[in-house]
């Protein structure tokens, strides 16, 4: 086992997959000479050269489409968006080209592409730079949506994503890049579509992903002193959801809280709640609650931003509600 930052784990995944398969290339703003806006691609230009690590003009729609075109004829592009906020400009290529090319062509033309970059809020970046759009992409048939929370999962899932033949939305986090964790040595792949129980307990299931995993683990720690133990289920993939893992945990604990960073209305957590109530309703001893970011554009002010975000305290509050302890 090695201890790596989430950033370095991603860097290793990129390096290993580019060395393994000459069809894999990285394209995006500042990925080459600048070493990556968040340094995820540090050293790759020097190792693989400018044909395979390609700096683009500031043209998200254009270079996302370039990636899709290259994938259509069999290359395996990794398209980096500096943040997923800017990828809104590329939505036509992700949704109207990548997601539906295989279907529209009657199975003839696939798009083995990975769109990756940081998603969600950091610290005081303001309304246009703090958004979580996984629900929008998870809504689209033809896409897969992957959101690792830990360095080990980041490396294993990025490697799997690059080898996957479908278009993948891969969402990281600026606040995750410095997180350290243990990463297995050697070839480490994590399957897409499989959740991971990060902590086991009996009284409640905390369903989470990306930045809320650490917050749920903190909440679970705090709840132990009240004699409450929690399953912390890290979804890791939003589309497709690992329904088996969700239902198994809820079948054990009979109570669930779904925790996500983004806005509440039609968030990805809403889909999880629907799946649970539709399929394992009789397992439930309480309604399924959600903890989400506040339903507002992200304010700049430090205290307002804090109030807008999910916290371990809010998660503990929701757990107590489903246990009828309030």
């Amino acid at each position, binding site marked *: 086992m090695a201890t790596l930052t989430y950033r370095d784990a991603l860097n290793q995944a990129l390096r290993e997959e580019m060395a393994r398969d000459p069809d894999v290339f990285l394209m995006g703003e500042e990925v080459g000479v600048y070493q990556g806006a968040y340094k995820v691609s540090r050293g790759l230009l020097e190792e693989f050269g400018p044909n395979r690590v390609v700096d683009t003009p500031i043209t998200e729609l254009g270079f996302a489409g*370039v*990636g899709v075109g290259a994938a259509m004829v069999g290359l395996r592009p990794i398209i980096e968006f500096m943040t997923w906020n800017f990828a809104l400009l590329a939505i036509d290529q992700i949704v109207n080209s990548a997601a539906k090319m295989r279907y529209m062509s009657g*199975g*003839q033309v696939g798009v083995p592409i990975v769109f990756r970059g940081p998603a969600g809020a950091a610290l005081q970046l303001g309304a246009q730079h703090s958004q979580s759009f996984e629900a929008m992409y998870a809504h689209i048939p033809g896409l897969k949506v992957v959101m690792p929370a830990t360095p080990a999962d980041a490396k294993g899932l990025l490697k799997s994503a690059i080898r996957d033949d479908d278009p993948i939305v891969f969402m990281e986090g600026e606040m995750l890049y410095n997180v350290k964790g243990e990463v297995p040595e050697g070839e480490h792949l994590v399957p897409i579509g499989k959740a991971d129980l990060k902590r086991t307990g009996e009284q409640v299931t905390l369903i989470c992903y990306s930045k809320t995993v650490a917050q749920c683990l903190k909440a679970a720690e705090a709840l132990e002193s009240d004699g409450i133990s929690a399953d912390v289920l890290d979804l890791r993939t939003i589309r497709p959801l690992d329904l088996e893992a969700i239902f198994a945990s809820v079948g054990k604990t009979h109570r669930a809280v779904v925790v996500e960073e983004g806005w509440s209305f039609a968030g990805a957590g809403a889909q999880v709640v629907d799946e649970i109530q539709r399929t394992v309703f009789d397992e439930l001893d309480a309604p399924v609650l959600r903890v989400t970011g506040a339903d507002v554009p992200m304010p700049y002010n430090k205290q307002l931003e804090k109030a807008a975000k999910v916290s371990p305290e809010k998660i503990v509050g929701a757990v107590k509600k489903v246990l009828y302890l309030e």
Partner: protein
Amino acid sequence: MATTKPARRTDTKLAERYREYLRQMLLIRRFEEKAGEAYSLGKIGGFCHLYIGQEAVGVGCLSQLRPDDYITTTYRDHGQALARGVSARAVMAELFGKATGCSHGKGGSMHLFDAPRGLLGGHGIVGGHIPLATGIGFAIKYREQDRVSVCFFGEAAVNNGAFHEALNMAGVWKLPCIFICENNRYGMGTALDRATATWNISERAASYDMSREVVDGQDLSEVMAAMDRAVVRARRPAAPTLLEIRTYRFVGHSMSDPIHGHYRTKEEVEAHRKRDPIVIWTERLKAEGVIDDAAYEQMDTAIKAEVQDAYEYADQSPEPAAEELYTDVYAPTQAPAMGVHPSS
């Protein structure tokens, strides 16, 4: 002194090719006429955009390509598909939504695909496929091949951001792309001069450090010559070209738009019909002794039979199986039932 006759080219390979181009243009014309009929009979649903009047552009451009070159185009794609060699049967069956269609009934008129022939769609978002063509050009250069990525779009697409971004990257990276603007003067119902600040579209190539030409799209020989120059330029070492090919559609934007609609006068349409690309090419071939009236009639009769056969084939072909609703959402190598939640 007797008037000199033009040189006769009846028995050369060139004559064969010239007749083949006529056959292709006539096939497109008769096919599109039949598709229009089929649409009115309810055999074809949704949108149907016909290529009538623009045949020389598709045939002329594609005549200069190799089998391993790549093509992306718009929703007005029947002509390019037929010129690329997709059978009339496969195209008609796709328009009818049948399992035997070139996209297996899942794409429809706007999404004709034939991957082995390098026909990579058939795209419905104006301008949206142009970055794809740049990406294909990127892949060609990445692999150090000498193929060409050809992209057809209408003149209305050049005002779209995707056009600008795609051509800029093709220009800065020197990609083997040929961007073909089929300027038929109308973006749906909006005339060029109402939507576009500069009407000489080819001039935009200067923004992208790219070669350019303006071409009379009703003259097949001019189209072929310009395309030949662009293809030579695109193969090693690669350089992109913007071709502005001026043409005219003799019918409405789609089946729901009458021949001249509110935005073109009957007189204008009729004036343009006088420059029918098929008539222009036929007259030339007749003058050079490559074809005579009887051979032309024979060709047209055979084509009409081919189109009728395609119509019947499409009509009698099976619908896709019910399970096809859920196939090809994801790659078959991946986990099963990806698009289907068990409880939905």
